[in-house]
């Protein structure tokens, strides 16, 4: 064994940024090398978009805009949750395969590990959302906004995706197995249906409407809708667009403040 150069021990522990970028890079590389993951997420998203648009759309009445215009922003934002479900499954798989045991035995920050993972997951969610938006334009969506409003909408989408990434990392870690994580992710269905994502909430029974009115997804969807469609939708609202944007950011803050420590705790717990 004489030809082998001895490895010298590292003199520093890695910084948080290096850690986050390394872990995020790994997740991203894995996604790039397994294009099925992105492909399936996109196909799923498009199939459901088409079903809503062409199967259910005719029976859903909205005011001020066409149903395609109403639907697409709601679909892109709530789609974050469906793509995120896949991340929860991937996290559960990594945990089961011992990869997190290795990471937890290294001299690195837990928060940085999870932040890296969350960034990569959020990037995937946003990417799937953008592809869905592209398909939305084909099926009759028209944006009525300035470039600045469009950029603002994109920025918000990134923020929402990051928040949800931490939720799904937490779900993936506590679920204990990929199947359980899958099961938990199904909760995204009722959560997104009981919001303004697919239908106007005024048509819901009052108790359901009361929940839909205050839950985060409604704030996020309305922010996107208002930014992309402008007056055509906002003029019928009880509240201003900024009410929803500020509300969505407050909700994002709450989600981050609650779920980041939960994710860190569940990562360190086992």
């Amino acid at each position, binding site marked *: 064994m004489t030809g082998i150069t001895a490895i010298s021990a590292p003199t*520093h522990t890695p910084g948080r940024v290096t850690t986050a970028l390394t872990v995020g890079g790994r997740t991203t590389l894995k996604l790039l090398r397994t294009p099925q993951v992105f492909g399936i997420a996109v196909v799923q998203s498009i199939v459901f978009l088409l079903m809503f648009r062409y199967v259910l759309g005719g029976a859903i009445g909205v005011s001020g805009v066409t149903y395609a215009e109403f639907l697409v922003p709601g679909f892109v934002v709530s789609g974050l949750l469906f793509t995120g479900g896949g991340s929860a499954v991937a996290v559960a798989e990594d945990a089961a395969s011992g990869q997190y045991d290795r990471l937890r035995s290294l001299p*690195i920050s837990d928060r940085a590990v999870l932040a890296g993972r969350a960034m990569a997951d959020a990037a995937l969610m946003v990417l799937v959302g953008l592809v869905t938006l592209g398909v939305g334009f084909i099926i009759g969506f028209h944006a009525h906004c300035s470039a600045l409003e469009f950029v603002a909408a994109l920025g918000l989408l990134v923020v929402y995706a990051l928040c949800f990434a931490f939720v799904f990392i937490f779900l993936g870690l506590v679920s204990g197995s990929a199947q359980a994580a899958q099961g938990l992710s199904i909760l995204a269905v009722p959560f997104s249906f009981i919001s303004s994502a697919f239908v106007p909430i005024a048509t819901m029974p009052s108790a359901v409407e009361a929940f839909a009115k205050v839950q985060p997804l409604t704030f996020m969807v309305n922010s996107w809708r208002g930014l992309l469609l402008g007056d055509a939708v906002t003029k019928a609202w009880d509240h201003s667009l900024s009410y929803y944007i500020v509300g969505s950011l407050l909700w994002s803050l709450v989600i981050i403040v609650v779920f980041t420590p939960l994710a860190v705790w569940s990562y360190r717990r086992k």
Partner: protein
Amino acid sequence: MDSMIEAQGLTKHFGDVEALAGLDLAVPSGQVLAILGPNGAGKTTFIRTIATLIQPTSGSLKVQGIDVVERPKQVRRVIGLAGQYAAVEGAMTGRENLRMIARLFGHDRKAAGRAADSVLEQLGLEDAGDRLVRTYSGGMQRRLDLGASLVGAPRLLLLDEPTTGLDPRSRNELWVAIENLAARGTDVLLTTQYLDEADRLADTIAIIDHGKLVDSGTSNELKSRLGRDVVDVKVADADIERAAAALGPEASIDADHARIAVPVTTGAEDLVTAVQALGAAGITVDDIALRRPTLDDVFLSLTGHTTEWKAFDESDGDGTDGDGAAKKRDKRKARA
């Protein structure tokens, strides 16, 4: 001398389950320590506590002199962990895996590349280094996983059942890799349920059962502490319980329900006594022999049950020469 680990009254409870029940063990640096015990003995809990993955319920534990509860981050700087599964990323190449972990150990980009190259060479994976890990065989993945724990040049390498589930050839390759590491001065702590593995690799063997230390020492110390020869009896399956009863209270039946072992004191005379006892009971003896105790006997006499070493018994010849061959040489056969 510096200490590798020092555990005092270490306990870990998972709800009602007491995985560690007051473990005391102090072992100096500069050697290979094998934690030997059956499934559920607390081996994995112990190694996970050392690796700072779980916190002990009570007691104290120092790793390379560093307290795991008070300074876990400090501990993480000096250890490298390879768990029971190959925790490597299939969608990355072997080299990419090693570089990533090297970066997370704190190497800069250049040093990480060098560490990855060095480990690939050390483990005989240079040719496979640029292939995706999902194309590796199980044995190669485990070797790469071992490599991933090495890129940070840890002072203490922790291996949790490193060869469980490997075929004999892969197991032997991993053993050679571990021996080379130890020869170059890395402390190694491994858990195993295989006596031959402990016998071959370890300088010190610590036997644990039910979360407690049962005994520790070198392989020879443990064998000589038991000290006594063993009469080894094979009878027809149907007679085995009756035969054990006839051979007295110290007789024990092995895990496969195939053989009976009786520790004896005077050697040949006891062999004759055993033959006579079986004859008096009207039992036909297939095979009977007097032999030196093996680690299996040590384990049996200390814990009251055997380990699961049968799985590797067939491969005994291909590299486990130490005890396997000696055991065969020592076997003094006597036909009844």
